[in-house]
């Protein structure tokens, strides 16, 4: 049973995907995971506007180093902001504070607006950091990194299977959808539409179950007893220490700036 790297165009964010020349690719996945978590925690903990802006700048610098596809990143940031729209519109309108602009009963308060800006900065810093350090990491390496950081092997196996099979079921689902359209299915808001989606959902589940049974049998045939060897990790290299030290210095610097400002 090989859980190989899954090349998925829709999922890859880096132009020069994990090429071995790139220094981020030569980092141990552990350095990248721990670095990303610390940097995201720091972005979330920022309390001042200057600290929040500094984190966004640092995140953008990381993204530049990681050589991300900026258009894909903008696309994703726009999507993230979609969730935030409610919060960003309502906060300036409902928080008490000095009115900046008032339109009849509606007033934009200064504290509310500041709050909205600070949320936008924090969310973006976190997303950009995650993309720079983790979206560019091949999921299989992510899994191995997590395993060597002490994440239970069963959870890592779940992740690796998910990576392996999700794109397969997405393709299968897309084919089912196409077949529905070919038979003249037009989505509306009625019971017939929901029944079609129910059947679609059920069919995809049945297919995954059947696939699961086949895979399970073939794995048993090969003597699977519940564990794969997760490849032993190499010791961290000089590059990992250099990267971690640099990142730590930048984060401590920004946190100091945040607390002083």
């Amino acid at each position, binding site marked *: 049973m090989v859980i190989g790297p899954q090349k998925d165009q829709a999922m890859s964010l880096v132009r020069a995907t994990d090429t071995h020349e790139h220094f981020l690719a030569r980092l141990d996945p552990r350095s990248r995971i721990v670095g990303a978590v610390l940097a995201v925690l720091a972005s979330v903990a920022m309390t001042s506007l200057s600290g929040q802006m500094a984190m966004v700048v640092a995140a953008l610098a990381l993204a530049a180093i990681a050589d991300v596809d900026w258009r894909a990143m903008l696309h994703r940031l726009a999507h993230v902001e979609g969730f935030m729209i409610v919060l960003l519109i309502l906060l300036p309108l409902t928080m008490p504070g000095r009115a900046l602009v008032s339109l009849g009963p509606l007033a934009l308060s200064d504290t509310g607006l500041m709050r909205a800006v600070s*949320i936008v900065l924090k969310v973006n810093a*976190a997303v950009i950091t995650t993309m720079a350090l983790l979206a560019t990491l091949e999921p299989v390496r992510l899994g191995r990194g997590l395993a060597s950081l002490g994440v239970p092997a*069963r959870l890592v196996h779940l992740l690796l299977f998910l990576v392996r099979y999700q794109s397969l079921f997405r393709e299968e689902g897309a084919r089912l959808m196409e077949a529905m359209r070919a038979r003249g299915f037009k989505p509306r808001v009625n019971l017939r539409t929901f029944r079609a*989606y129910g059947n679609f*959902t*059920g069919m995809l589940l049945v297919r995954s179950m*059947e696939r699961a049974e086949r895979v*399970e049998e073939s794995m*048993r045939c090969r003597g699977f007893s519940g564990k794969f060897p997760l490849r032993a990790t190499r010791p961290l290299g000089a590059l990992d220490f250099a990267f971690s030290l640099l990142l730590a210095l930048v984060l401590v610097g920004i946190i100091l700036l945040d607390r002083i400002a």
Partner: protein
Amino acid sequence: MAHIPDGVLSFPVLVGGGALAVGAIALGLKKIGDEDIPRTAILSAGFFALSLFALPVGPSSVHLLLGGLMGIVLGTAIFPAVCVALLLQAVMFGFGGLTTLGVNIINIALPGALIGSLVAPMIQRATPARAAVIAGVASALCVALTGLMVAASLALSSADYMLSARVMIASYIPLMLIEGFVGGFCISFVKRVKPELLAGAA
């Protein structure tokens, strides 16, 4: 809408959600036998793929949350399944976040685990038509609970989020109805085509 990003919630809420999630995942992993790993994992991949489909409904489209269906099919294994799914989404697509992972897992998986394990035995014994009704109500209820929990996560983080939390709850109502119908029809289909799928709730 159930994926709360990094940078919105307060630390106590993040820590609380994280701690709950760790416990729930440990419980779920314990229930999966070593030899059940491939089955649970591949079914989780199926659910994950389903959740990524934007289903057009009239002029708009929806993503299903699938909490109810996952609870019915996976039982408590829903916690580790949702954990890896949300981790992959946060890392690959930037939906949700790393610090909010625990809160998001609990918000989506807890209603599914509770209601799913409650109704799974009933669905096993019922006729396809009755199973559909039970699963439909369960699916809708899970969406409602997830909406309430997302709103509660916001409201507990800051009093300033109160109004946004209410708006958030209202925005879950259409999804609740749609997911109720789709979940019901889905279980009715599975019950007729492959009832074994419903037999092994861990």
